[in-house]
């Protein structure tokens, strides 16, 4: 699914990733860990060409470059840290996300969304709430529930549990495992050791 060969990332004179290589197979749930500033988020973004890099990154055999990045991104779900959306209602966020890919049509999409929200510990009436009425952790889970409606094979998640308590984090892990079982490849950046322990493989960028 994802192959990284001899990749280096630097910002100006500061080098954050040096000659890094790895291979990620389809339907893996991978965790990228390491100290703050070690380049985890930059590497995650480089997978879809959002961070400049040297070396070679291939997604489903296609090298990431200026010409291919848009088509690679169409098959990717990317969730950055601290994402805030314009719009007043939670339903606005969901509508915006639904426009980002192929969605199960009609009533089935509504049912799938309610199911995803329930798996993530959220009531279905949360979609009618105002953005100002929900917490950061609820927002993270709503975005995950909506992203899962899209037909994307590769998920890149930057700190998906950063705003969650222990119980909610376990619900997210369970939800990600379901996605993995459905054939999705998930790469998550995290500082959360307990989350990392539950993933199928951990890549520590400090070593």
């Amino acid at each position, binding site marked *: 699914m994802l192959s990284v060969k001899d990749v280096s990332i630097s910002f100006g004179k500061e080098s954050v990733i040096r000659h890094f290589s790895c291979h990620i197979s389809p339907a893996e749930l991978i965790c990228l860990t390491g100290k703050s500033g070690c380049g985890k988020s930059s590497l995650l973004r480089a997978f*879809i060409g959002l961070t400049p890099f040297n070396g070679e990154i291939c997604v489903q055999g296609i090298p990431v470059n*200026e010409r291919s*990045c848009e088509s690679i*991104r*169409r098959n990717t779900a990317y969730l950055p840290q601290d994402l805030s959306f*314009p719009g007043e209602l939670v339903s606005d966020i969901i509508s915006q996300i639904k426009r*980002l890919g192929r969605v199960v049509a009609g009533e089935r999409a509504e049912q799938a969304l309610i199911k995803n929200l329930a798996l993530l510990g959220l009531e279905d009436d949360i979609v009618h709430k105002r953005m100002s009425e929900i917490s950061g952790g609820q927002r993270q889970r709503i975005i995950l529930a909506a992203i899962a409606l899209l037909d994307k094979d590769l998920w890149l998640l930057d700190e998906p549990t950063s705003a969650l308590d222990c119980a909610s984090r376990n619900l997210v892990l369970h939800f990600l495992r379901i996605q993995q079982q459905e054939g999705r490849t998930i790469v998550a950046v995290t500082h959360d050791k307990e989350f990392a322990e539950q993933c199928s493989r951990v890549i520590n960028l400090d070593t």
Partner: protein
Amino acid sequence: MHTIDISYTSLAVGLFLLLIPAYYIWRYQTGLLRGICVGALRMIAQMLFIGVYLRYLFQWDNPWVNCLWVLVMVVIATETALSRTGIKRSVLMVPLIVGFIVSSLLVGMYFLGIVLQLDNVFSAQYFIPIFGILLGNMLSVNVIAVDSFYSNLLREQNLYYFLLGNGASRSESLQPFMRMAIAKAFSPAIANMAVMGLVALPGTMIGQILGGSSPNVAIKYQIMIVVITMSASMLSLIISIWLSQRKAFDGYGRIRQVAKG
């Protein structure tokens, strides 16, 4: 109707009214006292200068000189916009110039040639004031819109990268920022348009009535002035932001260093 002239002595007496805002600016220590003094002096000097050059422009009434004058106004408007936004000159200069010229020409010529049906669209009496009012409005709208577009984009770049990273094209990913920029730049104009004539009597209309036109003619001109300034401002904003994207993003859609400093 005859317009009463204001003598220079009367003008000086009238300027005493500026003491009211100046007093309160000083009284509440807003830090704007120097600004209002310099601003007032600049306004007086510039307006006296305009009086001189408009007299010659109207006397010569030469299409080439008039066009040259509009080009000078475009350069000044561009320089003013560049100094008021926090975006690099290399990103914005050409887009602003192209935006100002293309939109003022399209809308201005449509008004002068098709609506007014002038035999000579370059006639100084119409060409200079119409292009002046268009450029003045385009300048303020562009400054607000471009600044809002890039400052929101830099502040909320996670949203842009979220949309881009999930397969949206660059222009689709920029839509929320475009929406915010247009709303911020046009909300005051739209609000003013809705109450025009009820709450406020616009400057162009008052000027024409004081200059001897009938209220009927002044109203029709005022309606058209609102329409052409809004159209040209929107067109120039779209052109400027669209053209600036070539320098503001790389081939991957990543945001380059666009802010000054």
